[in-house]
């Protein structure tokens, strides 16, 4: 019979050491996505703990005074950090990592091991709450597995009764001296047979399953709002999508291929083949920088309010509304990407925001530190953003002949630059007086004929405004330069124009069936006010963009055009979308839906089983009611014989299985006499029992079958002896 080898104490200790170090490394890796400045500390911890994991004798070389000084130094570090940073959470996280570092590089007693689990769990959970990212899901799963293995190991080491040796300054414990990792892993492979692995997997699945059940069943509450963790942190935003943009800002974002936005749409045919996700509108141009002018901000943005939903200006359609669910990654912008007007916008949790219905923009008060989810009902993909107020204002301005005060018309340039612009505009107009649409088309054609698209671009040297210099040269340029140049030209021609930044296009994720926009889809384009349609017409002068301003190609019309992404990154993104859809965005409404689905499924299957039973019963009754003849009797007998044969086969198979010792290892357990005698021997162990009784019990337990005394009298005597001792003890205690 093959025997399963077991790890000895030293190997258990070595494994414990490895798992503990692994837990430290795993939990400090949270720094990667937490965006707390602890990089140095993390790398120091990773290097030190990694080294100590590999060479476990190293901690013995740390002099004893280090251990004595460790606590005061850590406390001083924390207090200093707290004083210097002024925030609460980052110092706590750094303190946690520091403690992990200290625990990771010294020999641990059992409570130190438990401390590692608690400290690590704190880090992982804080990181998870701060950034509801997919990495957190993977990490908590890995952490759970590692911690389970670690606890199991602790229990085993404890059960084997050897203290976790190792004290500061007393030299390395024996297990650390004779460490051979290769040997340990070979031994682990020997020990890990399918039973252990199955048991471990079952345990792990159990923990994960129970967590999933709890997740499904417990009432929903807003973790962020209850913990206020976000308040303890500040965070830097990308500059590309803020309300002031220098040239090159958007292009910087283009370099980043990570996910920016995922959109779920209940009716995918509603998405245009090349949607423009508007985020920021910038109307003021001065010194090479586009800004959102204070006047426009004051005129269009509502006062800040905190709410979970927001009613838009679009009117609800009578047919089934289309819902767009946006998952905006952390760190993209405070401005929410939208394609136009909408009926209603609903946040996952309460947000503080401002809304500009004229611009079609929504801006949050704070840069979100975690993914922001919002659901928009009846969002329209618009090429023209209606703005009647602008038309009214323009009319008034022309009538009164007053000084032009709209930032969308202002050209704060030197006379030289204005002259150059005027020359170009005259060239574009070619003596005619075209309408907005025609002018835009001509200006775009002019720009594209003159400049080549390139991400590497520079304004030619010289005096005056850099944008005008570029415009007048033949240097290649990127989307911001194209858009900026068109805005200047339009304003020179007398049409109000502004820059819009956001994302253009995106791809359709073939795995999770949603729209995916990456940071590399960042784009800048223009909107020129067209009095004929009383709105801002989108003009995208960048080559490769759809230069035509009017055609509304939806996905339904141009399904072939749409980029369907089936790459590996799309696969990973789909996992992320699943995480957002099903886990993060799992609110009370979805919970109710899920529970209702479970309930109806259970009821349905119960009903089916009952129906099947009733059906079978009815058939049996009908069969019984039929007249009996020889054929039916034979059938019955044959069926019964088959059932008996099957039972007999099963029983034999089970016995054979058991004899192989796969499940029932202790064969003695099959002999009830031996088992009973063994039980009494164990019970009487250490008690002064008459030798004859003990000999009889031993013979029953270990002796040959032949010549063994009858069990019952021996057990009776054993019981008497045991009772006598027992009662004697009770009287003695009383």
């Amino acid at each position, binding site marked *: 019979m093959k*025997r399963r080898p077991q790890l000895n104490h030293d*190997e258990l200790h070595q494994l414990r050491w490895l798992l503990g170090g692994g837990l430290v490394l795993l939990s400090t890796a949270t720094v990667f996505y937490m965006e707390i400045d602890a990089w140095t500390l993390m790398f120091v911890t990773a290097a030190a703990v990694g080294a100590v994991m590999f060479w476990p004798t190293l901690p013995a070389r740390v002099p004893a005074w280090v251990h004595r000084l460790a606590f005061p130094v850590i406390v001083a570090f924390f207090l200093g950090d707290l004083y210097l940073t002024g925030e609460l959470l980052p110092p706590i996280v750094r303190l946690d990592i520091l403690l992990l570092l200290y625990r990771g590089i010294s020999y641990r007693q059992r409570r130190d091991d438990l401390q590692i689990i608690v400290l690590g769990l704190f880090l992982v959970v804080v990181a998870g709450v701060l950034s509801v990212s997919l990495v957190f899901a993977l990490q908590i799963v890995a952490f759970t597995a590692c911690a389970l293995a670690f606890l199991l190991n602790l229990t085993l080491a404890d059960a084997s009764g050897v203290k976790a040796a190792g004290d500061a300054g007393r030299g390395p414990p024996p297990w650390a001296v*004779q460490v051979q990792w290769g040997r340990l892993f070979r031994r682990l492979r020997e020990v890990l047979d399918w039973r252990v692995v199955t048991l471990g997997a079952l345990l792990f699945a159990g923990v994960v399953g129970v967590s999933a059940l709890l997740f499904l069943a417990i009432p929903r509450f807003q973790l962020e709002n209850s913990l206020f963790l976000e308040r303890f942190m500040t965070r830097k935003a990308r500059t590309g999508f803020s309300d002031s943009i220098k040239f090159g800002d958007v292009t910087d974002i283009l370099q980043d291929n990570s996910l920016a936005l995922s959109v779920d749409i209940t009716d995918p045919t509603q998405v245009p083949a090349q949607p423009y996700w508007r985020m920021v509108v910038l109307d003021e141009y001065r010194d090479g920088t586009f800004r959102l002018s204070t006047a426009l901000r004051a005129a269009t943005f509502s006062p800040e309010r905190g709410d979970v939903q927001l009613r838009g200006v679009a009117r609800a359609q009578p047919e089934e509304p289309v819902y767009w669910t946006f998952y905006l990654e952390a760190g993209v912008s405070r401005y929410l990407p939208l394609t136009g007007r909408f009926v209603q916008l609903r946040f996952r949790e309460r947000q503080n925001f401002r809304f500009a219905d004229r611009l079609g923009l929504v801006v949050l008060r704070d840069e979100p530190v975690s993914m922001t989810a919002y659901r928009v009902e009846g969002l329209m993909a618009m090429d023209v953003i209606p703005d009647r107020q602008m038309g009214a204002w323009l009319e008034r301005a022309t009538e009164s002949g007053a000084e032009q005060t709209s930032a969308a018309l202002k050209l704060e340039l030197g006379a030289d630059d204005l002259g150059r612009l005027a020359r170009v505009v005259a060239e574009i107009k070619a003596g005619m007086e075209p309408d907005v649409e025609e002018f835009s088309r001509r200006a775009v054609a002019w720009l594209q004929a003159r400049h080549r698209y390139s991400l590497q671009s520079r304004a030619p040297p010289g005096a005056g405004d850099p944008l005008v210099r570029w415009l007048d040269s033949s240097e290649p340029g990127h989307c911001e330069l194209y858009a900026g140049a068109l805005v200047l030209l339009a304003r020179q021609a007398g049409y109000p124009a502004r820059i819009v930044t956001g994302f253009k296009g995106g791809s359709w994720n073939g795995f999770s069936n949603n729209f995916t926009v990456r940071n590399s889809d960042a784009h800048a384009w223009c909107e020129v006010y067209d009095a004929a349609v009383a709105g801002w017409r989108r003009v995208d002068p960048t080559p490769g963009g759809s230069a035509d301003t009017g055609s509304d190609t939806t996905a339904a019309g141009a399904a072939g055009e749409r980029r369907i992404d089936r790459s590996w990154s799309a696969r990973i993104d789909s996992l992320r979308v699943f995480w957002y859809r099903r886990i993060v965005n799992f609110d009370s409404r979805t919970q109710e839906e899920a529970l209702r689905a479970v309930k109806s499924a259970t009821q349905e299957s119960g009903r089916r089983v009952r129906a099947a039973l009733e059906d079978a019963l009815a058939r049996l009754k009908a069969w019984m009611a039929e007249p009996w003849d020889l054929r039916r009797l034979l059938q019955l007998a044959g069926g019964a014989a088959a059932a008996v044969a099957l039972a007999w086969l099963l029983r034999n198979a089970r016995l054979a299985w058991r004899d192989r010792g796969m499940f029932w290892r202790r064969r003695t357990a099959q002999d009830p006499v031996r088992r009973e005698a063994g039980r009494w021997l164990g019970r009487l162990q250490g008690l002064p029992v008459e030798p004859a009784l003990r000999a009889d019990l*031993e013979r029953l337990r270990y*002796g040959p079958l032949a010549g063994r005394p009858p069990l019952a009298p021996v057990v009776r005597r054993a019981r008497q002896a045991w009772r006598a001792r027992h009662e004697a003890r009770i009287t003695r205690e009383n």
Partner: protein
Amino acid sequence: MSDFVQAGQISAAKEMVERMRANMRQTIKGKDEVVEQVLVCVVAGGHLLIEDLPGVGKTTLAYSLARSMDCDFSRVQFTSDLLPGDVTGVAIYDETVKEFVFKKGPVFANVVLADEINRATPKTQSALLEVMDRARVTVDGVAHPVGAPFMVFATQNPVDYEGTFPLPESQMDRFLMRLQMGYPESGDELEILRSTRAGYDAIRLNAVVTREDVLKLQALAGEVFVEESVLDYILKIVTATRTEADFRAGVSVRGGLALRTAAQARALVYGRDFVLPDDVTALVALVFAHRLGLARPTSDALEERRAVAAVLKRIVAAIPLPV
């Protein structure tokens, strides 16, 4: 192995063993434990390696055992110039019969004391191998059986290493047990001092059992019943020595068999026809210690012996007794 041993046989065996024990106690003072271990070894039909300093009664022990069993005793002092022929015997050309005649060596006895075995060269040591394993000597293709019963008492001094050839592992494996004598208690030593006897030749002991009795005992020991869970327990111990990181290598299959045989013999010595787990635990160190080497050898032999014993003790403590 028959399942059935007559109760009378068992009690007779116990009575024989008790007679031998009492007889040997006349000359071996205060070493009851050692005497018992030697008796177990005799009943199991194994060979003994006694490790101790000179002059603690090793020869006396062997001689009084031989006397008690009415057996031939011979003693070979192993030295570095001892030749294999000196142990086994040689074939000499006999003029009178005009052919080679085998002259039996000292190994042709029942109890052979191989004193300071590690002083001889490996060639001579290995000459003992066949005798110990098969109880016969082959010279010039002719096998000559040695005495029956046959038992080798080898002694060696663990402290002195100058000019010795440590026994190879294959030969170590052929000894059933390794014993330590140790100094007697002060009271027992006083009694020894009081006695006027000097040297083992002066020992006058009567034979209490015959050679045939001993052979019967050995045959009976093989029939002692070992229950499945006890076998399982032995196997667990053997496996544990193989997976133990402190040992260079585990116990061989022969080692496991030796433990079983010794446990059967001990059961018989105690007058039982079945083996208890206690028989096994009592013998583990005696049967296994000399078969195991540390993965990291220490420079000092005594320290190594202690370390091996400690690890064995730990292993046995960690394995639950079959209940």
